[in-house]
């Protein structure tokens, strides 16, 4: 039973560590987020950009 406080302290320290690390910019996570947004905006997943009609309207 008296092992509980130690376990609690350890996990509190771990959690605090996570929060501390999060102050730094998470570059890898930002890249992933950027890629997900770019996929959506540029429609890269479907690979069928709707450029044909607007190209026809250009000249």
């Amino acid at each position: 039973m008296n092992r509980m406080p130690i376990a609690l302290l350890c996990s509190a320290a771990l959690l605090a560590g996570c929060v501390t690390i999060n102050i730094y910019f998470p570059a890898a996570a930002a890249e992933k987020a950027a890629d997900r947004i770019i996929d959506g905006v540029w429609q890269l997943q479907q690979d069928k950009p709707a450029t044909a009609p607007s190209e026809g309207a250009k000249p």
Partner: protein
Amino acid sequence: MKRLQRIAMLCLLIASAAWAQSNLEINTPAISQIRSTMQSRHAQLAPYYASGAVGLTADGGVALRDATAVPLAQRPAVQGLIAQENADRASLYREIARANGHPEWEADIRSTFAQRWIERAQAGWYIQSGGAWNKK
């Protein structure tokens, strides 16, 4: 048994904290709104990327690269598209930083996006680096 449950709960907590750190929040209503506006605008911008009239800038935006590639009558419209796109991109970077509780990340998010837009641009599109335009 109760102790096991508590330990399991703690593990869950730690795992979710770690998960939150490896993923940025991009699903707020404000961000979704900007994403869908940019997506529908892309259909209009795509031909100009392809013709080289519009290129991707090093700072995560778009710019008019070659005005002569656009018929005179269409130039104001293209300039409008570019201005709207840059305004949306600026709001997108700001909103992502804010949604993740770190408004000061905006510049880092902008430079991350700048790299990724360029990395994922189609061959033939123009990309600005060090003030010069290069064809990808």
